């Protein structure tokens, strides 16, 4: 198990050090985050148990729903995690393992994705444990129930291998199709394949682990379903084994070839007479375009849009509305902050350059804030007007000013969090999820107090932005780095 020790020594060590240093540096923020996550989780467990209605539902129905939810949740989480850690393999240490240590490619892939799997599993547990608690509390635990739950857990590595295979296959197809727009094609293919994968698993019930629900008797059937699952996992692993060497070969070759891609230059000299604010906006746009960050945001928006449309087509109205609200409340926030949360780490990375550029700190911040606010309002309108009103017929009042004020507060708050806790490739998604949970709690508290609407507007539109700008300017964008 060389790959496991490599994963633990490299990623595990880095993760431990990051966590310890972050919590030591920001004890209060760490405590607040921990408290918020614990509270929202306790609330979630209570609501799930309270909402359970064992008298009306047979154990088979409950298990079937739990199975579907299990597959959907884990697939969704791992798809997002695999996508956002795609550049992790490009660090020099993995290239070194590939070229110098003659380590089998599949082991490099396993080492790279070990913690990604662990995190997917953690978030899966976060969502699924209350569902399992309902089964344990309200139903008599039989061997059959335990077996079904065991199969659900066992099917997780299968799903993960499947998603890795889909990612690698998308990449290899994209490389063969077109080299110049490779990143965009990989993203689009991965969206399509992942969507198909989730749809097949979720809605057709065509999944081996669920066979046991229908073969609800006899020891032989248990053995058969277990064997089928193990065969399916092995097949996926075999596929991963075959694809990984081709994938890594292409990936590292591509890294070398990247040097020879010439970009169409922008004549920055022409910006000389532009106002500073416009220069900052153009510069940030160039960064987002060339680092493919906008593509990531596009990926999330399309993915969430597809989920809404698919739920509308497949689920009944009641279930659709609950999915819709979830996506509209939390998914959209994720789509909005996924890019701007990295602004802080970009600032810290280039602060010596910013020092020599003599830029004004307020203009640096305001230019980016303006750009991200406009992007976020566009995302909101796309959801509210495009997905909700036109496709699903859910009426959203576009003229409610509070939604726009809320978007502005989310934007500035996420920028501030990105500065306080600079993100890396590895912790970006965790930070985003923590942000969404904490923001959810704050909103829950604010709206539970029945505060006057003018006070809520003041809080979102003036107080939060004012505090954030003050923290950013006094603590980070201060002199002499910026004016």
């Amino acid at each position, binding site marked *: 198990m060389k790959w496991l020790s490599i994963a633990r020594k490299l990623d595990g060590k880095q993760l431990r050090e990051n966590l310890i240093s972050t919590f030591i540096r920001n004890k209060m923020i760490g405590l607040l985050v921990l408290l918020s996550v614990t509270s929202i989780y306790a609330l979630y467990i209570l609501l799930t148990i309270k909402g359970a209605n064992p008298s009306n539902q047979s154990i088979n129905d409950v298990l079937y729903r739990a199975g579907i939810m299990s597959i959907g949740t884990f697939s969704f989480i791992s798809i997002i995690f695999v996508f956002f850690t795609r550049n992790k393999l490009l660090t020099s240490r993995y290239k070194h393992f590939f070229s110098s240590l003659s380590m089998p490619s599949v082991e490099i892939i396993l080492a790279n994705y070990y913690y990604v799997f662990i995190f997917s599993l953690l978030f899966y547990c976060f969502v699924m444990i209350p569902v399992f608690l309902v089964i344990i509390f309200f139903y008599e635990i039989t061997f059959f129930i335990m077996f079904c739950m065991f199969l659900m857990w066992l099917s997780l590595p299968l799903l993960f291998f499947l998603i890795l295979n889909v990612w690698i296959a998308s990449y290899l197809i994209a490389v063969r199709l077109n080299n110049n727009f490779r990143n965009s094609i990989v993203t689009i293919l991965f969206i399509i394949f992942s969507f198909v994968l989730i749809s097949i698993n979720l809605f057709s019930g065509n999944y081996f682990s669920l066979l046991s629900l229908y073969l609800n008797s006899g020891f032989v059937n248990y053995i058969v379903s277990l064997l089928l699952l193990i065969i399916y996992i092995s097949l996926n692993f075999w596929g991963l084994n075959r694809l990984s060497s081709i994938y890594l070969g292409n990936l590292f070759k591509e890294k070398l070839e*990247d*040097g*020879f*891609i*010439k*970009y169409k*230059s*922008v*004549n*920055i*000299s022409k*910006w*000389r007479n532009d106002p500073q604010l416009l*220069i900052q906006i153009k*510069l940030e746009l*160039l*960064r987002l375009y*060339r*680092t493919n960050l906008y593509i990531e945001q596009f990926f999330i928006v399309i993915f969430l849009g597809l989920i809404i449309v698919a739920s509308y087509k497949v689920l009944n109205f009641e279930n659709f509305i609950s999915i819709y609200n979830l996506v509209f409340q939390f998914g959209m926030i994720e789509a909005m902050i996924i890019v701007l949360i990295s602004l802080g780490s970009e600032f810290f*990375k*280039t*602060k*010596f*350059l910013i*020092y*020599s*550029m*003599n*830029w004004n700190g307020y203009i640096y911040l305001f230019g980016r804030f303006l750009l991200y606010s406009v992007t976020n309002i566009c995302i909101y309108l796309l959801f509210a007007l495009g997905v909700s009103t036109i496709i699903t017929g859910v009426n959203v009042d576009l003229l409610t000013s509070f939604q726009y004020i809320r978007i502005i507060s989310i934007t500035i708050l996420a920028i501030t969090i990105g500065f306080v806790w600079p993100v890396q490739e590895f912790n970006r998604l965790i930070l985003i999820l923590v942000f969404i949970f904490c923001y959810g709690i704050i909103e829950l508290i604010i709206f539970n107090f029945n505060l006057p609407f003018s006070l809520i507007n003041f809080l979102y539109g003036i107080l939060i932005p004012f505090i954030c700008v003050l923290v950013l300017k006094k603590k980070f964008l201060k*002199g*002499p*780095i910026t*004016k």
Partner: protein
Amino acid sequence: MIEINIIQKKYPDFSIEDVSLSVFPGEITLLLGHNGSGKTTIIRSLLGLVHLDLGNIKLDNIEINFQNYNSYKKFKSDIRFIPDEDVLFDYLTPVEYFQLVTISNNIDSPDFLDFLINVFDISKYTKQLISTLSHGNRKKVQIIGQILCKPKYLIIDEPTNGLDPDMIIILKQIILKLRDLGTGILISTHDLRFAENLMNNVTIIRNGKIILQDKSDNLLKEYRTCNLEDIYKKINNDYYNFIEELIENEMVKHS
């Protein structure tokens, strides 16, 4: 003239005490010392990036207040810094980066830029993203970006890291030319051979304290050699004797 006077800068496991350093126009000041001796802290304090517990920074005898823009405005326009860290806007091409430097600092010298691009031999890479350049070429882009501003004072941390022998020789000539044209230069380096013919003033620090500070002419008189390595060894004599003794005894024991 830039002066830095650090009376005290304390960290949990390290401190810098009583360090004074000056950079004069038209002269090169060398800052030498072992890893962790405090060189980078001194440079960052000079730039106002590290807050001093006790001490000050002066430009032409006027103390700089880094909390007040009017106070450090002139300082920032006079000074340029080339860090040891590999820091650039990776999403730009070198030529875009140079253009950004010129418009941000309100300078316009296309001929000088062409000259620097040719001298540092990066014309082949100017339309390639900076993120795809080799470490050496990135270092060249960093150096050009700062020299382009024709600064009054230039601070360079480890200038030779990542550069090939050709470029080290060329950089040395450019630094000497800048000095002759009146630029005050502070160089922090481990490369004693590179620094040898460059120095006008030398400061050697060990564990946050100055152990030697003098002009190069005085050093030549005192130590009767221009060889910086010999001078460095003599200054750190106790340390090297201890290490030699240790190597002699322990290596034999373990072989």
